[in-house]
């Protein structure tokens, strides 16, 4: 148990180190940091003095260690574009993205899992087939087109829902939430749906595939032969064994949601981290880009770590395999 966890932690640390190295290289070698900070009239000597003061003349390994130290103490430097501290920019944007992601994950799981089970059980049924064709279309429609379509239908044609921004928010400390106002909730609906639809189709297809595999196994055939009622067969015997892939799915989904929030936030002008990242790419704002990269990598590593740990607790096979080693 301990060896398993420590090995995984070591791997995660390795990944984070690799990503920080990329972020550092980005920060240090793409463009000249000093040239970004000073105006054109600054003399060469002054520039050299700044360079010395910032430690840019030290050896590369020394600079890298210092970079890591600063990251660890959440000192992310200043944006080239807005001259604000990057940590401040990210903190004000973080709640918007997290809330949006949370709601889309809910949509995806609460609809996707039951629909997946249904289509697996009622294979070939009319409703199941309709659902399947819908998901095929859903997977093929790009996220931004779904968003545009929703905006046109509910925003332009019907005029029911707001189509950009977060609406009214209430501040709980530094965390601005849109869950507590009606306007905020209404603004949340379209972006969350846009972000959730693709994940939903993915969940449904994966749950369906997994459920079908389980339904083909001998123990299910045997249980059917024993005459167990179908409800118990499907939910206690079959679905329980699809839970492990479902956990993987949730892990993957979180990753997908973080990534596609960039697109959704751009369509709905949602003031989250994705929009910030996109702006930083457009304006080559390297500090914001590299910090975003490190933060995202950290999120992914933590998600993967948690998923692996969950396997360990849920699946006796994983536990036994690691003990056998």
């Amino acid at each position: 148990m301990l060896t398993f966890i420590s090995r995984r932690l070591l791997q995660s640390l390795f990944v984070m180190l690799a990503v920080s190295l990329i972020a550092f290289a980005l920060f240090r070698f793409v463009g000249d940091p000093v040239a970004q900070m000073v105006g054109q009239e600054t003399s060469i000597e002054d520039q050299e003095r700044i360079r010395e003061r910032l430690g840019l003349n030290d050896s590369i390994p020394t600079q890298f260690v210092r970079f890591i130290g600063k990251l660890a103490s959440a000192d992310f430097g200043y944006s080239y574009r807005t001259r604000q501290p990057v940590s401040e920019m990210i903190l004000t944007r973080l709640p918007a993205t997290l809330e949006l992601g949370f709601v889309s994950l809910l949509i995806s799981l609460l609809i996707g899992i039951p629909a997946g089970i249904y289509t697996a059980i009622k294979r070939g049924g009319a409703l199941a087939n309709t659902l399947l064709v819908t998901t095929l279309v859903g997977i093929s429609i790009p996220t931004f087109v779904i968003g545009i379509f929703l905006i046109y239908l509910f925003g332009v044609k019907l005029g029911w829902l707001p189509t950009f921004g977060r609406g009214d928010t209430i501040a709980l400390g530094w965390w601005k939430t849109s869950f507590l106002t009606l306007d905020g909730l209404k603004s949340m609906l379209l972006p969350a749906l846009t972000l959730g639809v693709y994940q939903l189709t993915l969940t449904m297809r994966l749950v369906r595939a997994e459920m079908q595999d389980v339904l083909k196994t001998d123990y299910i055939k045997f249980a059917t032969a024993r005459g167990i009622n179908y409800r118990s067969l499907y939910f206690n015997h079959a679905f329980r064994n699809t839970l492990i892939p479902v956990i993987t799915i949730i892990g993957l989904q979180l990753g997908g949601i973080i990534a596609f929030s960039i697109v959704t936030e751009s369509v709905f002008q949602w003031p989250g981290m994705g929009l910030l990242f996109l702006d930083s790419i457009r304006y080559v704002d390297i500090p914001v880009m590299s910090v975003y990269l490190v933060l995202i990598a950290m999120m992914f590593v933590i998600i993967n770590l948690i998923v692996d740990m969950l396997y360990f607790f849920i699946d006796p096979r994983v536990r036994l395999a690691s003990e056998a080693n």
Partner: protein
Amino acid sequence: MFTALRRYAIENELLYLFLHNRIAQLAALVALLCLGGAALAPWIAPYDPYDIASIDLLDSLLPPAWSEDGDTRFIIGTDDQGRDLFSAILYGTRLSLLVGLLSIGFASILGITVGVLAGYLGGRFDSIVMRIADVQLSLPAILTALLIDGIARGILPRESHDNLMIVVLTIAIGLSLWVNFARTARASTFVEKSKEYVQAAIIMGMHPLRIMVVHILPNILGPLMVILTIDLAVAILLEATLSFLGVGVPPNQPSLGTLIRIGTEYLFSGEWWVVLFPSLTLIIMIVAVNILGDFLRDALNPRLR
């Protein structure tokens, strides 16, 4: 002799399944139409969207020909600059497919080379490659592509952006999709390597490179074809997304993504056609490629039959 015989049988079976699958045939037809339209765009498009002389701003934002204010010169209307939308879509499909095919070519060559080498050689090379693949696989492709795109923007001088954007896009999308190819190629190579024909070739003292290219590669092409098709759809989607986000092809070149991006700006004032037709083209193309991918996967997977 044996492999040739077997390959013939597989191909024949594929053909047989294809001839009995109406949906796959339809998808292939649509895909061919898109490809044909893209390849022949300069000859079949009524106007040249790059030719500024032929564009009249007075023609901007005309609705499709069948609506009240429509103009019969422009079948499905014009965009904000007065370009014929139909021609712009043809050229846009051309650019989207070009970037899609180039990047998937790049991804497959890179991925298959690395994968076959890793599967055949094993050892340290294998573990390093697979470690990198694992890390990259945990990041969604769109994120990787955006990052590479962003880095390229930082490195390249601003003036050469527009000229190099297609190369940058190809590399960004290709590098974010190579992992699938590498993993599949590695796993299949691993299986093939322990088979007798490869063992025989090794004993005969054949050069490893020759074994990999002449003997193993033809036998692992099946699963790779499936990934090639499915990932082509992903690549087209990625290009459209990046262009839509404004970090893909330059705005003066009509790709499907940039056309949709332009279209959204006019959605609120009711000019729906600028966004609708490029979106439809994109969706139809992706659905067709996806259906073909699904067909190939089912046809080549013995477990599902």
